């Protein structure tokens, strides 16, 4: 066991893992976290806590993660290299692990110009792969990055990263995953999947490289709320591909939200059948209440209790 | 101080004497004014003679004319020669006729205006400087690129006029697209025979050197001093030094044989030419099968060329008259704007060819292994009954898109030429210079400029040859230095000017020879990395001058000072 987290246990037992996602409040209102935690508790194995997602200022993911721990939910603390240099990153990891956080997700982060502090200076001292390498060094060698400096205590972290099979150049996407694996990643959560063909093709490349045996891949899904949302995402979000037939299906549905959930469940069932997919990551953005319904309909309940 | 002579032109009564007097009275007695004389029709040879005498007698070095449009005097002086002792650039004209007398109604105002204009002209005259003339020797040598019909015709015409020609052909044989043709639409002889005759004439002509399987790789220099590096297929290179260059690389045909167009019933005009030539009258066989009906489908790919219409009517007539075929010509517009075409068209019609003109592109489908064309004939009167018309025929002659030669782009770069609409070589601006290119001494002719019917192409070839002959026959190219000039010390080598020069007259060579025609300051032969304007290639438009961010370029005949003087404003 690298960190002994619940998520690690589920995955290492070969069980199909389910993770959820929680966006911390745009302030210090703890009740928001509590409300969302209640919606997710029992339906997922761990919950991603975003780190100022889309560069919108929110409660720090370390703080929100430790609050979640107190509420009895296992967090996956996200960390971006956008806002911290290697000093802050390593110091934050000391703190986070001290609070008992055992999972983290290494990200570069959305560009700051997308958020509400466009005038800020971005850091990018490290990129996500270098961050993975940094955390792995801290955990496995017990030293700081690039240094001989010994760490007092042990950093136990189950290291995750994201990968987007829908970014370009497509042929390079599996190789990039290999780079992350080489840097020391333990699990991967993907960008939300709508273009199943492309995802399957990517997974084929991943399997050809033998990566599915070295890393746990959790396929990302996001239920579509409405036709408008589908159209907006397809048009405006780089790195998300939504095939026209899916947009059509949601747009033409009498109850688009219901259709969106149905679609999501179908997707999960399809993903489960793909070799190398070890779990799903459900990103029900500001729609956390649907997580229970989705997991139930997809037959993912009850979540296993593993020691 | 400048000594200025004033000439007042009465313009045949357009500028009345009292008016003249009122104006000139102001300047009499000014120190720089040597004299003022009155003349009638100063632009006439006699008056010019007298003008010269005045200038000589009074030893003046500047002249101001008060009269009509400067263009009038410039043209007549160019024609009859400038008075000796007077450099053309030391003459200033105040256009009293068009710009005051005829433009200002109130007489008092006109006088006032005229006086102002006169003072401005005197000011301009005293601040202008002479521009020297030069001439460049030209050897009678021309490089013709492309051995198609155009290149052949030009080479022969040039050789007949005593000009040495290098005829560059990329392929093995001369002839180009003409080798695909069998007949002219408006001449009795056969194309092949015509080409053969011309080719043998070329081989007999000692002034023409045919260099086949060779392409142009690099071009340096300007008019009269071109250095063309050519490379043979086997890799050997040679440098030619022609005075002028003609580009006649022709056009290319782009065949669309995708989808239904891949059907065996479709053939091209060239294939039909061959078929017509190979078959013996009276029956037309293709792959052993008798062809009885032929449709011509002139698509929209070539909406702007005439050749397709001409070929269609020509071939249709042959099919009808020699092979008893039923023909249909489907087109959007039938282009008959060539000599004799309307008659051919009518003849084809009278002998039973159908002409169907459509607005919407016809629909194609395969019925029993044959192509069926469904078309809406816009000239049908009873639409309900006759729309759409279905046509089944044994063969369909399809127009292929005529596109620029694939090497056009590369050649443009090598030659410093421009490409126009549709990617063909562009002629030098629309103003009458169809066969000239944007560069002095380089001409573009024939299909590489735009695909045309053979006889028109030949006309163009003749015109091109004439241009080259007119340029080279004198043996020298006279020019004056009324051109742009770079001050190498100010030049930041920013490359703005070579990018913008419409005539590719500016080069930047790292160790270019210093501008040889610069006068004061540094001596000749200084090496300097700066932009360099070739005075022969420059047209003196001043675009580079206006654009130079370092203000390193001056237009020698119109420096800043003269522009400001013309504005006639306070300093």
């Amino acid at each position, binding site marked *: 066991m690298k960190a002994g987290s619940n998520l690690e246990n589920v995955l290492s037992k070969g069980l199909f893992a389910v993770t959820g996602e929680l966006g911390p409040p745009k302030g210090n209102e703890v009740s928001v976290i509590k409300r969302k935690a209640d919606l997710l508790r029992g339906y997922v194995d761990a919950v991603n806590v975003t780190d100022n997602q889309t560069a919108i200022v929110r409660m720090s993911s370390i703080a929100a993660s430790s609050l979640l721990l107190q509420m009895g939910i296992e967090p996956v603390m996200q960390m971006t290299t956008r806002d911290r240099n290697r000093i802050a990153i390593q110091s934050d990891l000391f703190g986070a692990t001290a609070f008992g956080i055992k999972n983290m997700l290494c990200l570069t982060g959305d560009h700051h110009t997308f958020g509400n502090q466009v005038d800020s200076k971005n850091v990018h001292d490290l990129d996500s792969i270098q961050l993975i390498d940094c955390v792995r060094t801290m955990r496995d060698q017990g030293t700081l990055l690039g240094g001989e400096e010994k760490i007092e205590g042990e950093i136990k972290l189950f290291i995750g990263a994201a990968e*987007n099979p829908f970014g370009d*150049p497509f042929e390079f996407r599996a190789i990039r995953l290999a780079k992350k694996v080489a840097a020391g990643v333990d699990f991967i959560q993907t960008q939300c999947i709508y273009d199943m063909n492309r995802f399957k093709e990517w997974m084929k490349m991943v399997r050809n490289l033998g990566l599915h045996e070295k890393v746990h891949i959790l396929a990302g899904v996001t239920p579509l709320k409405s036709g408008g949302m589908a159209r907006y995402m397809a048009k405006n979000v780089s790195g998300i591909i939504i095939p026209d037939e899916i947009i059509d299906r949601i747009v033409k549905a009498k109850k688009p939200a219901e259709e969106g959930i149905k679609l999501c469940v179908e997707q999960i069932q399809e993903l489960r059948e793909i070799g190398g997919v070890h779990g799903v990551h459900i990103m029900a953005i500001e729609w956390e209440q649907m997580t229970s319904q989705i997991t139930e309909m997809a037959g993912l309940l009850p979540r296993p209790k593993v020691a | 101080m400048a000594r200025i002579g004033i000439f007042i032109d009465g313009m045949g009564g357009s500028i009345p004497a009292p008016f003249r007097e009122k104006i000139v009275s102001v300047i009499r007695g000014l120190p720089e004014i040597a004299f003022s004389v009155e003349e009638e029709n100063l632009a006439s040879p006699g008056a010019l003679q007298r003008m010269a005498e005045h200038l000589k007698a009074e030893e003046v070095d500047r002249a101001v004319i008060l009269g009509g449009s400067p263009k009038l005097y410039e043209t007549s002086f160019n024609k009859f020669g400038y008075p000796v002792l007077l450099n053309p650039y030391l003459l200033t004209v105040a256009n009293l006729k068009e710009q005051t007398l005829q433009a200002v109604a109130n007489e008092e105002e006109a006088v006032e205006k005229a006086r102002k204009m006169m003072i401005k002209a005197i000011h301009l005259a005293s601040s202008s400087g002479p521009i020297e003339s030069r001439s460049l020797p030209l050897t009678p040598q021309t490089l013709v690129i492309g051995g198609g019909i155009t290149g052949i015709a030009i080479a022969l015409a040039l050789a007949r006029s005593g000009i040495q020609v290098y005829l560059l052909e990329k392929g093995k044989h001369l002839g180009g697209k003409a080798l695909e043709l069998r007949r002219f639409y408006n001449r009795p002889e056969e194309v092949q025979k015509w080409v053969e005759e011309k080719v043998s004439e070329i081989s007999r002509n000692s002034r023409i050197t045919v260099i086949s399987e060779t392409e142009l790789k690099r071009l340096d220099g300007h008019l009269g001093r071109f250095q063309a590096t050519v490379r043979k297929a086997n890799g050997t290179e040679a440098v030619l030094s022609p005075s002028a260059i003609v580009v006649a690389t022709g056009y290319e045909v782009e065949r669309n044989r995708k989808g239904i167009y891949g059907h065996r019933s479709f053939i091209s005009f060239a294939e039909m030419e061959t078929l017509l030539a190979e078959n013996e009258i009276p029956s037309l066989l293709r792959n052993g099968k008798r062809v009885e009906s032929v449709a011509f489908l002139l698509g929209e790919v070539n909406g702007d060329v005439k050749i397709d219409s001409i070929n269609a009517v020509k071939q249709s007539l042959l099919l009808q008259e020699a092979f008893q075929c039923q023909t249909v010509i489907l087109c959007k517009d039938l282009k008959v704007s060539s000599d004799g075409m309307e008659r051919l068209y009518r003849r084809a019609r009278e002998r039973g060819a159908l002409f169907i003109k459509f607005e919407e592109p016809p629909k194609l489908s395969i019925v029993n292994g044959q192509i069926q064309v469904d078309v809406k004939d816009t000239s049908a009167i009873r639409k309900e009954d006759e729309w759409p018309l279905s046509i089944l025929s044994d063969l369909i002659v399809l127009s292929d898109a005529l596109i620029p030669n694939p090497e056009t782009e590369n050649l443009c770069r090598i030659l410093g030429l421009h490409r126009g609409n549709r990617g063909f070589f562009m002629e030098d601006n629309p103003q009458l210079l169809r066969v000239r290119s944007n560069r002095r001494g380089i001409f573009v002719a024939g299909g590489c400029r735009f695909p045309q019917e053979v006889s028109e192409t030949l006309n163009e070839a003749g015109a091109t040859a004439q241009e080259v002959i007119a340029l080279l026959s004198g043996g020298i190219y006279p020019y004056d230095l009324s051109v742009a000039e770079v001050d190498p010390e100010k030049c930041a080598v920013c490359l703005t000017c070579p990018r913008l020069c419409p005539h590719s007259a500016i080069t930047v060579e790292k160790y270019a020879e210093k501008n040889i025609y610069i006068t004061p300051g540094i001596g000749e032969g200084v090496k300097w990395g700066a932009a360099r304007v070739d005075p022969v290639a420059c047209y003196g438009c001043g675009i580079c001058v206006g654009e130079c961010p370092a203000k390193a370029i001056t237009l020698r005949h119109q420096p800043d000072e003269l522009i400001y003087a013309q504005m006639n404003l306070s300093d």
Partner: protein
Amino acid sequence: MIKAEQKPLEEILLYLKSYDRILLSGCGACVTVCQAGGEKEVGLLASALRMARMKMGTPLEALEATPARQCEPEFAAELSETVEKVEAVLSVACGVGVQTLARHFPKTPVFPGVNTTFLGETVTHGVWEERCQACGNCILERTGGVCPVARCAKQLFNGPCGGSSKGKCEIKREADCAWQLIYDRLNGLGQLYRMEEIIPARRWGVESRDSGLRRIVREDLKV
């Protein structure tokens, strides 16, 4: 070369508010090439400033000069006499030139007339794009001659990120994704394996601006 853009006229007018007699100094090098501060731009800006001030009713006398390279002490020295005649200097050279003049003329205020933007390449005439950040340790050898430091919005060393879409960057959709360019270039060279290597964390603190003032000393050249 260094690329710069002229500052808005209103901003410049604000700097010069309390002066009636200035020197407007251009530079014959980089800013001439990027058409921000050559002799022509100096003339234009001077004319515009004079007119704007005339319109305000506080005429401005603007002398003009364009030394060959404002960042050399000798060229700056050429301006000495002129500078003595004026109350302030407006320099449309890059930030380097402005500082050279400031150092050279301790008693005269020197204002910048341009924003020095980047080290860039001419894409087509009139379009310039950033190519180099002068980061101090060139890695172009590993990235096929395309610099991710200058051209990737996130300065990724192991890109591309998920926002690379159809060759374009999600942050500026008109901009090429640097990592797509690197991929294409290495692919063309048959060196894709170079992208499979992980580029380790950079030593910013030693090599780059982050180490404090950088300085190049060539002992052999010193006189």
